[in-house]
């Protein structure tokens, strides 16, 4: 028996999507390990896992969108989505907290300690400071300045926060033109950000000598900005999805949590960027 009749709260029927997702994660992780260790075929396993994951995400989210459009989700389901999205974003905040914590730790504790008298025998002449590639790495690098591309990127992301809110106002007023124009602008700003970030990475690797291997500055720089960039990429894909749904006439002025969830996520990515701009690029 399936689900529709369960006293209002929609309980989905048995589903094959989760097990496909599990197979995809197994393929991804196993393939990545084999690929890293240059075992023949590892790349293919990785690719297969990724393809399966993409298929699963399309299928599963497609089903959820279909159920939502059939009106199967009542108010209680909607409020469940709200709780869950909020807590999910909290988990993402904690993920970034681990890397910000690492950054603060090396800047305030481990790098200064390497210049102490205790370490003078081991690393004579090391003066510390920030940015640093550490006492044991000879290749020099130039740090990424804050007031070029990163400042523009700050402006771009903050503007995209404005455009997505403007789109939301349009949705709530039933003004579809404003909704779609706002979303297109947001997607465009997201893509522009990613393009500039890619250019910045290229610049770092080819001209500044700033790489993942450039000591703890390079490591924290690329991990923090890289994971942020990954989240912007995901956010942009999510924005494109709700743009497509808006074009297809989904969402009503009253019921549109998918839109709100994506905008919450987008604002979260925005706030993380502000932290990055201040602590990674600027100070």
């Amino acid at each position, binding site marked *: 028996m399936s689900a529709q*009749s369960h006293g209002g709260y929609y309980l989905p029927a048995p589903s094959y999507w989760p097990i496909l997702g599990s197979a995809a*994660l197994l393929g991804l992780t196993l393939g990545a390990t084999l690929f890293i260790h240059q075992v023949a075929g590892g790349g293919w396993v990785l690719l297969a896992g990724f393809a399966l994951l993409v298929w699963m995400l399309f299928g599963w989210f497609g089903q959820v969108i279909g159920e939502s459009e059939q009106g199967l989700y009542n108010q209680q389901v909607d409020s469940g989505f709200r709780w869950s999205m909020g807590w999910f974003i909290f988990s993402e905040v904690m993920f970034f907290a681990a890397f910000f*914590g690492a950054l603060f730790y090396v800047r305030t504790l481990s790098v200064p300690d390497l210049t102490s008298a205790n370490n003078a025998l081991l690393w004579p002449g090391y003066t510390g400071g920030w940015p640093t590639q550490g006492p044991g790495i000879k290749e020099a690098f130039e740090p990424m300045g804050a007031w070029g591309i990163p400042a523009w990127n700050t402006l771009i992301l903050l503007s995209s926060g404005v455009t997505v809110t403007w789109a939301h106002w349009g949705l709530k007023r039933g003004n579809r033109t404003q909704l779609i124009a706002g979303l297109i602008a947001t997607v465009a700003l997201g893509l522009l950000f990613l393009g500039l970030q890619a250019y910045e990475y290229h610049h770092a690797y080819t001209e500044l000598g700033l790489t993942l291997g450039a000591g703890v500055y390079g490591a924290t720089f690329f991990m923090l900005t890289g994971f942020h960039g990954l989240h912007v990429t995901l956010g942009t894909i999510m924005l494109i999805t709700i743009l497509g749904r808006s074009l297809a006439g989904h969402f009503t002025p009253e019921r549109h949590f998918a839109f709100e969830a994506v905008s919450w996520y987008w604002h979260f990515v925005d706030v993380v960027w502000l932290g990055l701009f201040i602590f990674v690029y600027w100070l």
Partner: protein
Amino acid sequence: MQAHALEHEHGHGAPSGLMRWVTTTNHKDIGTLYLWFAAVMFLLAGSMAMAIRAELFQPGLQLVSPDFFNQLTTLHGLIMVFGVIMPAMTGFANWQVPLMIGAPDMAFPRMNNWSFWILPAAAILLVISLFLPGGAAAAGWTLYPPLFIQGGISYDLTIFAIHILGASSIMGSLNIITTILNMRAPGMTLMKMPLFVWTWLITAFLLIAVMPVLAGAVTMLLTDRNFDTHFFNAAGGGDPVLFQHVFWFFGHPEVYILILPAFGIVSQIIPTFARKPLFGYASMVYATASIAILSFLVWAHHMFTVGMPAVGQLYFMYATMLIAVPTGVKVFNWVATMWRGSLTFETPMLFAIAFVALFTIGGFTGLVLAMAPVDIQLHDTYYVVAHFHYVLVSGALFAIYAGVYYWLPKWTGHMYNETLGKWHFWLSMISFNVLFFPQHFLGLAGMPRRIPDYAVQFTEFNMISSIGGFVFGASQILMLIVVLQCIRGGRKAEAKPWEGAQGLEWTVPSPAPYHTFETPPVVK
């Protein structure tokens, strides 16, 4: 477990046989899957413990190579924490939370399925790592660099397995937290929730807060190992101690993640068999929340020996000792609940009482270890091993046993064999103490942990400990027999098989029908 109920209610269209379990979106099915997964992993990690105790039966190297010994201790720890205790507790949450709050199912049934079914993927990664060149990860369950950086391909598989286990925990917790906050029956206010639900609400919060931090920590290990970063390498300005900070920022809340649901189970069982309401319900809730908050503020007590300013040692020492206050509130409340109650001693109650007594011993040794000057002597000795096995085996695991015996009639519709259950309890309780109590003495005498060989003066206590270990291991087979028997048949269980039991789960028939509370009950 409820094949009959299923035939009646499931009807057409839904997959049957194996595919029923693979595709299920039912909280009871998924709870059962979690519990069986935990049982299988328990046998696997338990047999590793048997090999460890066999090697340590006498000094010298007898059975396994030192490197394989290290693989055994590493996998034993990782699997027991992430593959046994956590899935078992999540299994309880799946079965019991909707039944206890009057919800028709978990909030997100398909994601619930996925949270479970990625666990076998992680288990596969860990198990195949045993058979790769160089064997499984052997750097200890805490994964400390620089040792962890130096291992082979299995170390990367271990990192990815932890990523997957973390994703499972986060999704499971999102589900549990949303179910509790959003799907309570009308009238079930937060302060009317059964304590098990409260403890899981707080546990889910802890999991969402710290599993991403662990993911960050192992991601840094991954890039240090493979992509030339220097987070944990002083040559690049990094620091191996940084890993310990990030790891234990996860790790200390993690130990409360393992024990808080156990507190919840015990808080359901003791009132039932004392035939009295739980003493100090509100203080239990506040104590649980206090423990959760404190758990974020004490992590470096795991690191007293790595070098820390005296101010840091003092802070972490006193903050750690502070945890004894809310924990003491709990122990006091359990004892006060039993005080002048009409006590009976069925198997769940026996395990619950053993929990209170033995967990308290583990708590006291924790206080001893919290003292920085003492910890410098005892760090990485068998005293620590004894301490955390008292809180995790006679703590978390005994509570799981208590919960299984307590709710088995509700799950299967049959009463379990009380005689065998009592045998299981007494054998476990006695052999557990034979196994772990002498390890306090070994640690005080200076025997380090994580070694396959030891100085001869430690022989007697190691032999005693190993004998206790073998008896303990064998006794757990009894539990398996009791559970299997109970699934296959036995005396019919009533809807409320325990006279003193309270709560919504006892208002539905035993076995609980496949779908319950499709129309929410009203709680007065």
